[in-house]
């Protein structure tokens, strides 16, 4: 055996040490990792509301200026709680939130919507807020919120994982009245009048209806829902929960109308270039398009100030606000009805159960969701329908671009939106939403030669019926 010498021995030891270190690192990580089925935070409700501290809030909505207004109002009552808001684009939000919450570096408060099963996806990270709500609002606290809001924000085990900030409605369109006036066009009420209006609008060099259906965002499902409502008001929700098939005649009729809308030029050629945000939002806000389908949250851009900042964000250097008004969805199917409005709670605020700032977080969401001052703020922002019943916008504090024309239209919109009975995304699974987007992209893409029947059949196959809210 050769004599190895000190040098080699040291090398051997070092190698062994390295192996042990690596192995122990691996084992240590092993023991801590893995998905756990251990207890969630159902038992604890955390510390009680505190009057000072810091709170970080993440959401895809509201816009940052709106959030900062909320926070400024909040700080009038609670000056010692510092709230920082971080805004994300729709798709980016859920992509960013998941790793943040998993890593333990997540926000203290985050938006949580009823859409696509979110309460079950994000619920395990959130505190059950039912005891807190009862503490603040009393035993009948559930009835104080808008219809069904509490249920829509509870997970399958009945934990109330977020408290409703406000509701949302969709199924209508927004028009740029200035373009309509300039083109001499009438607001369309059915398919033929829509084609006629578009002719006049494109004649003055503007786009008629802007829509973005590219990418991964699920906005196109709103259009699908509206068109389906025009075909048969009961169809969409029945298919969403599996009581009807997406390739039933109503489903096929819906997709065929999409094709017609594109072929007849109502929906433009660049619809697949990008998603609704930024494509449709920018085109409408730049004043290049006469119509866009957006929900109640777009009401805020009727405000004189919000309109300017939205136009600036869209890239207009010296913005001049236009008059935007809501309009009913045209009767595209020819069955005598446009689209019923559909709505539900838009989102609520959830508290991260791992947060170190649960006390001040509770104060913040109590003010936002359960106090009249906070909810008045929500009403005035014209972004959400207040979730706490009985709060209406204080028009003395709100300046619209054209108060005379827009105020009555918005008041009507609020009343109609509060009366919705059809849910929006609460009872549609995420898989179904994705499948609808795919189907729409297949209909719009001129290079895909699938028949409508095949597209509908694929939609039916890829969709997953929702079990949410089904007795």
């Amino acid at each position, binding site marked *: 055996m*050769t004599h*190895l*010498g*000190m*040098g*080699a021995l*040291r*090398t051997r030891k*070092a*190698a062994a040490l*390295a192996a042990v*270190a*690596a192995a122990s*690192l*691996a084992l240590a*990580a*092993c023991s801590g*990792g*893995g*998905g*756990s*089925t251990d207890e*969630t935070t159902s038992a604890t409700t955390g510390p009680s509301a505190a009057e000072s501290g810091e709170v970080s809030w993440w959401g895809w909505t509201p816009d940052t200026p709106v959030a900062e207004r909320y926070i400024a109002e909040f700080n009038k009552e609670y000056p010692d709680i510092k709230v920082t808001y971080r805004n994300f684009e729709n*798709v980016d939000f*859920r*992509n960013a939130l*998941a*790793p943040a*919450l*998993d890593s333990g570096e997540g926000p203290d408060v985050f938006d949580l919507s009823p859409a*696509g*099963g*979110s309460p*079950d*996806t994000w619920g*395990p*990270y959130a505190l059950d807020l039912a005891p807190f709500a009862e503490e603040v609002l009393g035993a009948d606290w559930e009835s104080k919120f808008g219809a069904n809001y509490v249920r829509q924000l509870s997970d399958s085990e009945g934990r109330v994982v977020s408290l409703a900030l406000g509701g949302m409605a969709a199924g209508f369109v927004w028009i740029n009245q200035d373009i309509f006036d300039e083109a001499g066009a009438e607001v369309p009420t059915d398919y033929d009048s829509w084609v006629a209006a578009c002719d006049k609008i494109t004649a003055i060099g503007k786009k008629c209806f802007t829509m973005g*259906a*590219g*990418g*991964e965002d699920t906005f196109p499902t709103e259009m699908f829902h509206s068109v389906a409502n025009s075909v048969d008001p009961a169809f969409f929700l029945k298919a969403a929960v599996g009581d009807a098939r997406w390739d039933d005649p109503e489903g096929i009729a819906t997709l065929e109308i999409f094709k017609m809308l594109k072929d007849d030029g109502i929906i*433009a*050629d*660049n*619809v*697949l*270039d*990008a*998603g609704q945000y930024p494509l449709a939002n920018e085109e409408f806000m730049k004043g290049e398009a006469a119509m866009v389908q957006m929900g109640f949250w777009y009401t805020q851009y009727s405000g004189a100030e919000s309109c300017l900042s939205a136009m600036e964000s869209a890239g207009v250097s010296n913005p001049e606000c236009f008059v935007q008004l809501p309009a009913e969805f045209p009767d595209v199917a020819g069955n005598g009805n446009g689209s019923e409005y559909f709505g539900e709670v838009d989102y609520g605020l959830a508290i991260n159960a791992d947060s170190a700032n649960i006390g001040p977080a509770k104060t913040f969401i109590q003010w936002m969701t359960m106090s009249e001052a906070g909810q008045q703020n929500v009403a005035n922002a014209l972004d959400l329908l207040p979730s706490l019943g009985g709060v209406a916008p204080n028009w003395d504090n709100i300046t619209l671009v054209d108060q005379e024309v827009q105020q009555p239209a918005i008041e009507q919109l609020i009343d109609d939106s509060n009366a919705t009975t059809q849910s929006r995304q609460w009872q549609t*699974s*995420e898989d179904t939403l*994705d499948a609808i987007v*795919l189907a729409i*992209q*297949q209909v*719009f*893409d*001129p*290079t*895909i030669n699938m028949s409508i029947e095949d597209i509908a059949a694929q939609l039916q196959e890829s969709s997953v019926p929702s079990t949410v809210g089904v007795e």
Partner: protein
Amino acid sequence: MAILARSAGSLNSNPGAKRGGWPRPGAAHLVPGGLKWILPGFILSVGLIYYSIIYSGYLSFFDWPGGRQEMTAVGSANYLEAFADPVFWTAIRNVLVYFVVIFTVQVVGGIAFAAALHSKVYLANIYKIIIVVPVVVAPATMAPAHIEVWQTNGTFNTILRAIGLGAWTQGWIGQSTTSLLVIIMAGCWGAIGFGFILYFAAIGQIDPEIIEAARIDGAGNVRLLASIVLPGVRSVTFSLGILNFMTALKLFDGPWLLTQGGPAHSSEFLGTMIYAETAGSSRNLGYAAALSIILLVLAVGVSIAIQMRSREKSPTGARKRKAKVANDV
């Protein structure tokens, strides 16, 4: 084998020599001499990276929506789902097409520009800057620019109309047949510059005497390129082959920023599929892990294949040479 033979020979020939210090060649062949220097990196590498790989492998046999939701054991269902998923095969096809095109463009463009700029060219430095700038531009910065160019009302269509090819205008980004093309164009833009940097350096290493000799023998530029330059930069070409394949396999930021894998999944890559499965709300981390393992297997397999190909082509067996030296001693 050859190394052992050599070290045994050296020990036998110097029985009395006291070799102090470390490490003695004879003993050190099993443990590399610089181990204590690479120890920190080694621990990090083995501890972190290989642990992650093994954990991903473990995870791929489960369905797991992530976070605090339940993990359900599903055996090899995730792999079967991947192989049965037409989107997966679209992604594989896209990876291969991207690799072939980018690699070809990079090699051809890189060598062409490098050879051209090695000859006497006026304002050579300006050209070098222009060629290399795309390499340093971050994907997130170049994506909006490319969208501006390729969108339906974008620059490219405007140019086509201006030169009378209006019939060719289409929604390049928003069509399943051309979405991959847009991503490849965006990739080519930076690829040529990178190839240029490597080839420029490699061509500079070629012995100028060989080139002189070839010129004296009457070789023209093209013959010079084909017979002297190309073989001389072969190692760079093989390295670029491996690099490009790895890039194509992992590709994410370009496709995600430009098309998000759409429309209708036509421009999906393995990278975008894994991301969508990891970060969306209807995610299954087990499926994402399975896709990652498939990616790993492909990466390692192709690396080995390319390495073996490059070794076959070396002029003489390097090992044989070493054995001769040992026998002489």
